[in-house]
């Protein structure tokens, strides 16, 4: 694999097994992410992409193998400790707090001790990324539109002052304009910060446009790794079937 020197690697997943009860979903999955890089993870539905993200951030207890984040082993660590280390997960289901205001949701994103000191500057960054959220600070999160609550979920993830964002299908259920907004935000994160991003996505076009590298996951195994410029959409989609 063509990842560069190991001190440049922020996340390295190696031989990751994961199962739900009897059903094993991940089989010795491996991938690496370098500092500041945007990596896209493609693959058919139900082949373990989301499971991989959840396992990395400690939300799936059954995972075995090795997950190294910023040099230290984090497998088996409680999820709140993992967030503390600088890894943020943005779920496909959004999981925002409906009966709280937008601002309260964002502040809770900064729950970990590191992020509490940086609430102000991170909040400014989130608002500059999504001016829409700034307009709605006092609105209840449950009354937001699908696109707005997606922005809120991404914003809340950024509030945690993460070094690596794991983004699970950010475009799902969104209009084309909203998809552009969300991927525009990922592009700005890539250009203006040193945060790394691992994004799972069905919309190959959008993800391919921002990613540096891509991985393809099929039947719980990582079967392909390429630079984003060296692969065409059709090649990726061919692997789906």
């Amino acid at each position, binding site marked *: 694999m063509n990842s560069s020197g190991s001190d440049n690697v922020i996340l390295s997943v190696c031989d990751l097994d994961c199962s739900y009860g009897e059903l094993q979903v991940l089989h010795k999955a491996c991938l690496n992410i370098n500092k500041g890089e945007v990596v896209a993870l493609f693959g058919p539905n139900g082949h373990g992409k989301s499971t991989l993200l959840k396992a990395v951030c400690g939300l799936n207890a059954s995972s075995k193998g090795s997950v190294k984040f910023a040099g230290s082993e984090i497998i088996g660590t409680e999820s709140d400790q993992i967030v503390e280390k600088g890894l943020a997960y943005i779920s496909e289901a959004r999981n925002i*707090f409906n009966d709280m205001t937008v601002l309260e949701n964002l502040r*809770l994103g900064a729950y970990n001790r590191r992020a*509490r000191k940086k609430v102000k500057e991170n909040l400014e960054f989130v608002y500059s990324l999504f001016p829409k959220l700034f307009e709605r600070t006092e609105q209840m999160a449950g009354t937001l539109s699908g696109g707005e609550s997606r922005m809120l979920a991404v914003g809340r993830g950024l509030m945690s002052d993460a070094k690596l964002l794991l983004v699970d299908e950010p475009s799902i259920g969104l209009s084309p304009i909203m998809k552009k907004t969300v991927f525009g935000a990922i592009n700005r994160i890539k250009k203006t910060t040193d945060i790394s991003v691992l994004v799972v996505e069905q919309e190959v076009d959008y993800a391919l446009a921002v990613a540096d590298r891509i991985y393809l996951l099929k039947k719980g195994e990582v079967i392909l790794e390429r630079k984003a410029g060296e692969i065409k959409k059709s090649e990726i989609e061919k692997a789906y079937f």
Partner: protein
Amino acid sequence: MALGLSLVYGVTHIFNFGHGIVAVSGGYFTWLFMNKAGLGMIPSIGVSMVIMFFIGLGLYRFTLSRLLKKENWEFSVIIFLLGLGIFWENILLQSFGPRVKDIPNFFDGRFKMGLVRINYHDISLIVIVILFVIALNYFIKKTWFGQAMRAVAQDMDGARIVGINLKKTFGYAFALATAVTGFSGILLATKFYMTPNIGWAWMVKGFVIVVFGGLGSITGAIYAAFILGMAEATITFFLGPMWVWPIWFFMFLIILLIRPNGLMGGRTL
């Protein structure tokens, strides 16, 4: 009383059937410190609440957190707390005896204006409860821990994602609710009296208020307590106290017909 019940249910979805006895324990602890240790009233209340807090915490750490890992934890937790409540009630009965005990009023005397007479003690109770509710509300809305409790109540996965430790939050919420409930028991014991088994009577009232207001909703519980309290006073005045329960339950049924989740049900903390 109702607040404690609502707090626990809202955060952890545990319905505490031993709740009445928790309130009574608060009263007995305070009585114990005042009469046997010779402490003043306010220090006794303070110490009792601290003890209640740690009892709640210990109860959660050593028993409930284990039960919660089971698959049908809802049922086992209910039975466990009910059993523990009965056990504890009998311990109180053994150590304090069945005779009526009470905690003295905060203030003696009453306020007179024409035909109106109000005990200073009642006024102080109202003030204390209002201040307490404001403080609790501030705590829940403005502190990191309060926000964490709301977050857990609204979306457990979301709470884990932002880095909230569920076990810790559950434990402290349970402890806080135990202390709040103990405090309510102390207030009730100053206004009325207590015996080891009076908790059940208190709990039924608290239960009606909480479900009326919407399980897990603090604001709902406050509205419900106000509405049902006014109703109780009016009914007692015009029809006599024996009508309180029938009319309460009638109102209860009407509310549940219109809003099956209670007055403010479905919303959380």
